[in-house]
């Protein structure tokens, strides 16, 4: 009886899961996110094939063998070799199957060299867009080495490209994440990581930092636009015409701890061509951008 009552609450989950388009992960845009979403579905279905019968059996046993039902009672039964082999065997088979599947999908989407995108990359190397991403306290700096432009808190990519992000941080660690597009990958000071995704559909998305990085962390969104090639070119022109140039000295000012309320976008022309490497080298040499105790305490209130 009681068991059934909370089983009855399960639909709450389903109710949550079935409603509208707010469920971003249910609506993958590109090949990477689609693969991730398929993995989610396959894993859930396989696991439910085991878990639902178990839940059902627990509910049935729990109901049928309640004391007041006076059902069959066997106070000694506690061992059955065949059953015990089965209870080890079934999870083993499931884990073996899911394990193989898991390893396969890792190679398909791994952020350095996703198997899913290799065909496109080798067929059309021109479609690869390299972007250097530098995480600061608490903004995202995107540097387009080939286009010679840079932005704060805006990632613009042309439709049909494969975007390869090089990631590092000036200060603490974070994760970069664009639901529906780019998998979460750690961004760490003094280290380089990569994230790769494709952009098959025009659209607007919100990316953000996912791993806590201090007081301004909640304000670390950045706009992500997938646009047509023409629009992208126009956008590069616009950014390139910015009077602000991102030399290393200017970057050091950008990297000072600050909250970009409302994730306002800034553009820079002529970024230092070695900016990414300089940032990595500086972090390794012990350069830090300290957050003062005063700043930590007053953040949020003085931003009004």
């Amino acid at each position, binding site marked *: 009886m009681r068991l059934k009552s909370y089983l009855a609450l399960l639909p709450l989950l389903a109710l949550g899961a079935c409603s509208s388009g707010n469920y971003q992960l249910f609506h993958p845009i590109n090949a990477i996110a689609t693969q991730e979403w398929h993995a989610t579905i396959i894993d859930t279905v396989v696991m439910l094939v085991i878990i639902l019968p178990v839940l059902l059996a627990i509910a049935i046993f729990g109901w049928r063998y309640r004391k007041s039902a006076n059902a069959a009672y066997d106070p*000694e039964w*506690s061992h059955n070799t065949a059953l015990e082999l089965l209870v080890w065997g079934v999870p083993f088979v499931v884990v073996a199957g899911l394990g193989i599947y898991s390893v396969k999908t890792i190679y398909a989407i791994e952020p350095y060299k996703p198997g899913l995108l290799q065909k496109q990359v080798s067929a059309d190397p021109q479609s690869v867009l390299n972007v250097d991403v530098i995480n600061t306290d608490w903004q995202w700096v995107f540097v387009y080495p080939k286009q010679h432009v840079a932005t704060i808190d805006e990632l613009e990519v042309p439709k049909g490209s494969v975007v390869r992000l090089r990631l590092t941080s000036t200060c603490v660690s974070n994760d970069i994440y664009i639901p529906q597009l780019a998998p979460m990958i750690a961004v760490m000071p003094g280290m380089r990581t990569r994230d790769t995704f494709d952009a098959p559909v025009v659209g607007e998305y919100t990316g953000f930092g996912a791993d806590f990085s201090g007081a301004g962390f909640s304000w670390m969104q950045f706009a992500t636009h997938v646009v047509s090639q023409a629009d992208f070119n126009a956008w590069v022109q616009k950014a390139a015409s910015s009077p602000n140039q991102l030399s290393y000295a200017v970057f050091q000012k950008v990297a000072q701890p600050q909250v970009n309320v409302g994730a306002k976008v800034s553009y820079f022309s002529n970024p230092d061509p070695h900016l990414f490497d300089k940032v990595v080298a500086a972090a*390794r*040499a*012990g350069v830090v951008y300290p957050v003062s105790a005063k700043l930590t305490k007053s953040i949020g209130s003085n931003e009004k």
Partner: protein
Amino acid sequence: MANETAPTANTQLFRPGYHGHNQISARTLGFWLYMLSDALLFTALFASYAVLDTPMNAAGGPVASQIVNPIEGFWQTIAVLGSVTCYSLATVAMKNGKRGGTAVGIIAAIVLALVFLAFGVNDLATLAAHGDGMDRSGYLSAYFVLILTHAIHMGVGILWMLVMLVQIPLFGFNDMVVARMLNLRMFWQFQATIWVCLYVYVYMIGA
């Protein structure tokens, strides 16, 4: 239910006169378990040292081959093994019931341990004086902390020996004193073992 049989006339339900466990053997087992946890502590430190023992982690500062001195380390090894030997001789004297001999052995062990520590402290102090202290680089941090952690363990051992030097004349060789002496012997040998690992890994392979 496994092995279930019906009670018979001989079935016992209680065990009067059961004395339970031996306190000394429980303490010995407990001490072994403590040493297991201590071994894990050193494992984590050795692992950290191994991770940070690269030219990159030296951050422009000295690397292992530039700072370790296997010759000096050799004398330290001799001192520490000598200390263990002296302490073991002390426990032999204890077995023969000789308080004086035990005390002499312990004092010799303490002196040799102090010699060992003097070498180590001098080594680290010299490095620090040349600007290569533990705040110089990731590698030096690992080097200093590994050696200092071992040195602190040695210090605790010396303190323990001093306590035993008071307890032996005070209590004689009673059960607890003997048990403490034997556990201390394990502890002391364990620290010597750690030092040998440290010497091989840091001083010999590093040089």
